[in-house]
């Protein structure tokens, strides 16, 4: 029999509901003080340092990490609730989100103690922004084609080469990147890459913003010229980054951010159709809600697996595949249904503005964080096909 895919109906414990209330109240306060406007997903202010610090003060960054590093030793399910409430409210989480989801956990696992003591508490306070340096001009899906070299030198490594599509590199304090420390072997073409902690805003590193089709600037080209990284900034095993990459994936791929990026158009559609919708609108909304609900159940279920100490790589890939395809289609479905919205709907303009942005956003959703094709390859492997 094939891999039994279990998505047990994990329920969020009462603790989570209390936390959810706190997060909602906090977000309402932030909206009231004008920090962000939930109806404007296309705003320029996705990086708001003060917001980040206030989230840190509440103890909502690094929520699952050990207390000695500034964390709060709470559960993945609690982290889940914070993430989804922030996402649904369109809160400006850009500054801390990558560090919270991914970079922090990598440091926790692979950084030397003094670095953990230095950096993790600052992440938890919402002071640090991280970027992920995986992709290169000729290495996207095929990560193991990465060429940017890390050459041995006195007390560390010299880096030469270019990373690309690096989200937030222009505002980041640190990047966790993979560089080539030796050539792949015949037996293992994944061999030879090492993970490093890179301090941004140093000599030898140049960040060039790249415009996106939405009109925003969020990802960048990052060029390294004889950039020095000291030995204690090596993360994990030299030449063994490939072994470290897979466990990161379950964290990166199953969260609510993988199906909620365009969610706001659904809320606005419901607002626009009013309390007594025509049959066609009702059916459209009903289906979208059923699909959303199902994905969320799957995603919560994966959070429960993470909490139980499992590494649900296949399950997480399934959530990301279905989730991103859904969030990509959502604006198109809403646009189609919005054709029936009355001229007089009070939020008509908001909905149209949001649709315009969401439709422009949609193409990237099934590319960032691993393409649909790559995810299906991982699922196929899990099914025993490769």
């Amino acid at each position, binding site marked *: *029999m*094939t891999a*039994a*895919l*279990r*998505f*047990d*109906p994990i*329920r*969020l414990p009462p603790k989570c509901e209390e936390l*959810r209330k706190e997060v909602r109240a906090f977000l309402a306060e932030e909206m009231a003080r004008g920090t962000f406007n939930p109806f404007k997903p296309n705003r320029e202010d996705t990086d708001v340092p003060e917001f980040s610090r206030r989230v840190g003060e509440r103890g909502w960054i690094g929520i699952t990490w050990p207390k000695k590093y500034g964390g709060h030793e709470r559960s993945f399910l609690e982290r889940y*609730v914070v993430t*989804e*409430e922030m996402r*649904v409210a369109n809160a400006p989480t850009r500054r801390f989100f990558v560090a919270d989801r991914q970079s922090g956990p990598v440091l926790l696992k692979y950084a030397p103690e003094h670095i953990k003591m230095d950096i993790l508490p600052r992440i938890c306070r919402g002071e640090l922004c991280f970027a992920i340096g995986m992709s290169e001009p000729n290495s996207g899906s095929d990560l193991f084609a990465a060429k940017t070299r890390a050459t041995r030198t006195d007390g560390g490594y010299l880096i030469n080469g270019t990373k690309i599509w690096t989200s937030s590199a222009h505002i980041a304090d640190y990047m966790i990147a993979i560089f080539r420390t030796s050539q792949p072997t015949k037996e293992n073409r994944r061999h030879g890459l090492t993970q490093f902690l890179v301090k941004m805003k140093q000599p030898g590193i140049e960040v060039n913003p790249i415009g996106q089709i939405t009109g925003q600037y969020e990802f960048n080209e990052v060029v390294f010229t004889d950039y020095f990284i000291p030995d204690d900034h090596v993360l994990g095993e030299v030449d063994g980054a490939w072994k470290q990459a897979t466990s990161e994936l379950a964290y990166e791929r199953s969260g609510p951010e993988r199906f909620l990026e365009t969610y706001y158009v*659904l*809320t*606005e559609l*419901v*607002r626009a*159709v*009013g*309390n*007594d*919708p025509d*049959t066609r*609108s*009702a*059916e*459209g*909304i*009903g*289906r979208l*809600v*059923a*699909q*959303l*609900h*199902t*994905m*969320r*159940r*799957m995603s919560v*279920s994966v959070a429960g697996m993470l909490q139980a100490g499992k590494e649900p790589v296949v*399950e997480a890939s*399934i959530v990301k*595949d*279905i989730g991103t395809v859904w969030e990509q289609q959502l604006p198109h479905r809403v646009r189609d249904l919005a054709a029936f919205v009355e001229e007089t709907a009070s939020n008509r303009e908001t909905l149209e503005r949001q649709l315009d942005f969401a439709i422009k956003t949609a193409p990237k959703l099934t590319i960032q964080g691993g393409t649909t*094709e790559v*995810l*299906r*390859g991982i*699922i*196929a492997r*899990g*099914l*025993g*096909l*490769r």
Partner: protein
Amino acid sequence: MAESDNIVVETAEKIFADLADPQTINNDKKDAWKAPLWRALSEAGLPLAWVPDDLGGSGASLADGFALLNAAGRFAIAVPLAETMLAGWLLAQAKIASPEGEMTVLPANPKDRITLNPDGSLSGRVRGVPFAKAAKHFAVLAHGKDGASIALVDAGKAKVEAGLNVGYDNSDVVTLDKVAPITIKPAPKHLDQTMMMLMGGVARSLQIAGALESMLDISVRYSNERVAFEKKISKFQAVQHNLAKLAGESAAALAAATSAADAIASATAFNDEVYLEAASAKIRCAEAAEKGGAIAHQVHGAIGFTIEHILHRYSLRALAWRDDFGSESYWAVELGKLVAARGADELWPLVASR
């Protein structure tokens, strides 16, 4: 097959494996397997799983019964197990004892109605009733001028026009023409036709999810056996991606169905949150049956289109089950109306309610 630590499910799986192996059933043109299977299920108390001891059943929990239906879906069994369970459950809501033998529940279509006449008899013509032809008794939800009632009816008193659904199982038209019920009692306040339909819908969702698990299973296996262009077809990326999508549909169906089952089993009231779970399960599982079933057939090529192959036992039933107790578009309209009536700002709190 998923390992089970549930005694009810284990018992059922053993019976299914012994007496309802899909291959054996498929080769048996005379349906000789049906009687022994039903006997074994009845002896194990499974058809009346949801009926308390004092009403003639085996008093299993709602959760165990739902898990049993998921297992039944994995074997795509074609005896009225789900129907008898639902009928027993419905009767038990009004404290009516269940008789032995096959039962089914009516109506099975949200638009149909059975009327309780002033003289205490029942009338109505309802369609798409699963296994009505095989049933000895009907559990009926009827409407009179004082509200809903639950009745036990002798199937022999009704007119049953046999029909077949796309899965080749009986799906019949039942006409009650002033039929006197064996027993009739008022339905408890919270129980209405919507709730009954959603209960049936969740049962079907679990069966669909089970059938999809099996379709995934046999499709993966087949792709690792079939050779084309000198390779196993499992080595073609296009086939792998199709199977990955099937895995996604199967997983989505299972997640939606088990979550809804759990929501009902642990509910204290049939509120909007439970409604969301149950309606969503039926909608999403029906979509998964369509998308997943198509892929399973694609992977099998022509062989899967033959009546000799077991694939159709799962694929056609999963497709047929979409129509029982309300189709996906029916529930989508209803769910959409509910969401709209609550208002835009209440959508997320509803979705994030558990």
